[in-house]
């Protein structure tokens, strides 16, 4: 047991590195740590949103709906987290090779790895899950028993999710006979697991939205609650958890809790049986097969091609980003997931929207809505928020690690390298803009294409400003001394600057929307374009002027 705890401790520390959120000497939170503030902002944001939602639901007399929404969102959040990290934790982490020569039993290693995964999920629960549920208790004036059950439920909740995904992973690894390319395989597993979850999610939502309703608002909420409960059927642990928290002191709560425990015990048993048979063999096979691959003969002339410095540099940036699965999954994947989820949700919701639009009153109201500055502002805010998800530019220097000095050794102007390093982020954001504006064009064809084109141009400037500013942040606060790729993104407290800039720009856009409210839409769009173009040019000139100073932390 002691061994398992020590191993878990080492693995968790190795994964998170030193975040310095808590000052052990002073025994209080380290307010100098950017992470402290990052968590504080997220904490505050979640508290605010939860407060608004719960108050609204209490006012309409349907507070229980919150629990349905809460557990569904928490399940999704934890599931995606498990999927993104489990392959790495169980099979591809660098610590495995260091631990294998030690006298540790496979079961101990398996348990320590599961504990590591659970620790991460508990940290996520602590940040995202604890406050909303406690707030629900406070705002609905429930008895003290609620908080007792809350702790128990949160402690038990992630276990089944973790063991289910990991068991799937263990099975996939068993059937994957040849792991020629570890990176591609890791990515493939993640994609397979995400597709599985998305499929279940789609099935669940199809069930929800296929039921027709034309009732009034309150009744709609009530039926919505029932529909979300149907979603819970697809995830065994949701409904018993809700049942415990809604039937606090009667027998249903205890029965539901034991149901929950039963599911978990079964899940853990299956995980252990499969893990015991396969885990160690598959780790060893993975390590051996990785070094045992056959070499392809090379023909140099066919593998070389003359490219300009810029093109070659950008190509290298893309390769380095895409070929490292951790960087890809942390920097690019979240944007893809969000875009795909939004598209899927819209596709599911289209029949519902069409049905709603058949109602004459609603149709008249929709047609009466004008396309004004505030709508432009809303679209740009959505784009700005989406631009803030990816950390490609924010980690462009840190990802290089100790090799970053290469930037300074080669005969290419630092300003040009700054531009090249921004290209992947700019392209990803351009795709986001095109997808979002394309969807708007498809679903709201009444908006003239010229307006959408002008919004696209404005979004290009916002995109450039975002990418440039984030790269400046990374240049001024680079994390070059890292051991594991995970720590580049996880340890990067620079994310705080991305959120701060997002808030500033959202406020700026809201202000612009307000002052241009009554102005002609074309003048509004052109003015916004000029404003953001000027901001961009100022930043660009500044970078060119102070390029040497900007790169002076890359040593």
């Amino acid at each position, binding site marked *: 047991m002691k061994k398992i705890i020590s191993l878990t401790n080492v693995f968790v520390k190795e994964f998170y590195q030193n975040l310095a959120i808590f000052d052990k000497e002073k025994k209080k939170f380290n307010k100098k740590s950017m992470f402290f503030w990052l968590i504080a902002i997220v904490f505050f944001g979640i508290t605010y949103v939860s407060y608004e939602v719960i108050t609204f639901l209490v006012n309409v007399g349907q507070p229980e709906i919150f629990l349905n929404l809460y557990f569904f969102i928490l399940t999704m959040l934890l599931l995606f987290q498990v999927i993104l990290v489990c392959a790495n934790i169980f099979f591809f982490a660098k610590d495995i090779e260091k631990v294998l020569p030690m006298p540790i039993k496979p079961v101990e290693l398996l348990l320590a790895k599961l504990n590591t995964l659970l620790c991460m999920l508990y940290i996520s629960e602590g940040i995202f899950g604890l406050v909303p549920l406690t707030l629900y208790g406070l705002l609905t004036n429930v008895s003290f028993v609620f908080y007792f059950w809350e702790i128990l439920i949160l402690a038990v909740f992630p276990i089944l999710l973790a063991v289910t995904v990991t068991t799937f992973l263990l099975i996939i690894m068993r059937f994957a006979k040849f792991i020629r390319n570890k990176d591609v395989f890791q990515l493939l597993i993640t994609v397979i697991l995400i597709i599985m979850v998305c499929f279940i999610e789609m099935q669940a939502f199809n069930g929800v939205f296929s039921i027709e309703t034309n009732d009034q608002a309150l009744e709609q909420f009530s039926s919505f609650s029932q529909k979300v409960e149907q979603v819970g059927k697809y995830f065994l642990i949701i409904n018993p958890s809700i049942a415990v928290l809604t039937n606090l002191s009667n027998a249903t709560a205890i029965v539901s809790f034991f149901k929950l425990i039963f599911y978990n015990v079964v899940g853990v048993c299956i995980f252990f049986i499969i893990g015991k048979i396969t885990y160690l063999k598959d780790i060893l096979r993975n390590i051996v097969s990785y070094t045992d691959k056959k070499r392809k003969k090379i023909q*140099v002339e066919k*593998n*070389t091609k*003359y490219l300009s410095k810029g093109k*070659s540099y950008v190509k290298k940036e893309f390769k*380095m980003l895409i070929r490292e699965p951790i960087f890809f999954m942390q920097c690019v994947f979240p944007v893809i997931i969000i875009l795909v989820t939004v598209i899927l949700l819209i596709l599911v919701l289209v029949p519902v929207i069409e049905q709603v639009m058949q109602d004459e009153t609603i149709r008249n109201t929709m047609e009466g809505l004008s396309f004004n500055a505030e709508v432009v502002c809303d679209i740009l805010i959505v784009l700005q928020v989406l631009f803030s998800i990816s950390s490609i530019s924010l980690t462009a220097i840190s990802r290089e690690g100790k090799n970053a000095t*290469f930037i*300074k050794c080669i005969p290419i102007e630092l300003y040009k390298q700054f531009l090249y390093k921004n290209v992947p982020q700019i392209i990803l954001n351009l795709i986001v803009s095109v997808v979002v504006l394309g969807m708007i064009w498809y679903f709201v064809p009444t908006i003239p294409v010229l307006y959408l084109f002008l919004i696209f141009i404005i979004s290009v400037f916002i995109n450039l400003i975002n990418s440039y500013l984030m790269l400046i942040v990374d240049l001024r606060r680079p994390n070059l001394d890292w051991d594991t790729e995970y720590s580049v993104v996880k340890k990067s407290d620079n994310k705080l600057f991305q959120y701060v800039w997002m808030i500033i720009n959202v406020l700026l856009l809201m202000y612009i929307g307000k002052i241009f409210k009554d102005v002609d839409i074309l003048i509004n769009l052109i003015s916004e374009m000029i404003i953001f173009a000027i901001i961009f040019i100022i930043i660009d000139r500044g970078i060119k002027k102070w390029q040497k100073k900007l790169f002076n932390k890359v040593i």
Partner: protein
Amino acid sequence: MIEIKNVSKSYKKGEKVINNINLEIKDGEIFGFLGPNGAGKTTTIKMMTGILDIDEGDILVDGKSIVENPIEAKKQIGFVSDNPDMFLKLKGIEYLNFIADIYEIKKEIRDKRIVELTKEFGIYEVLNDKIQSYSHGMRQKIIIVSVLLHNPKNWILDEPLTGLDPEAAFHLKNKMKQHAKDNNAVFFSTHILEIAEKLCDKIGIIHHGKLIFVGTQEEMRKKVKENASLEELFMEITKRNEENN
């Protein structure tokens, strides 16, 4: 030719890690840069290659200032760093092709040189593999090949022989000799005094950020101790400097 003129550097105000260094590495010369750990070797090399800013003084590479005209100066340098773990996700051939693009080497020339050099260093067969699958020595070799690819006049090598197998070390030493013979400059740092003894035309010893000796081994023997090995001379000269401080 590399000229280091009155160069100083401090990381903290008032604490100079490099104190007014003057050096000249002439064409046709192999210059060995020696010194204990933390003496300032890497800092000096980082300033020579443009990685670190220079606080005072200047460094000229073939007459081009690394401060005023860094791009032109860098074109004249081939630098092998002490960390060979570079671009691990690229295949060997992709890395060499990228370097060839950066230095604008024509396709015919790059193809010929890649084949020649990789065969010479015994890494031709692994060019299609990702660098992350290479051993430490092989990574070191591909970095050396990438530097030789654009045939720079001035080589700056930071601990270049660490991790190399005897055959590759032999080839590299021969390359260094040949490069100097072709009237180019070779500057390298090392901890292995036997290599410096056999290879260098001139030696520089840095200690506590100050250049305490520059000259040939003969000059050092005359100054310090007759018939002594480089190891003995090095120990003696650093000991004296320690006592003087």
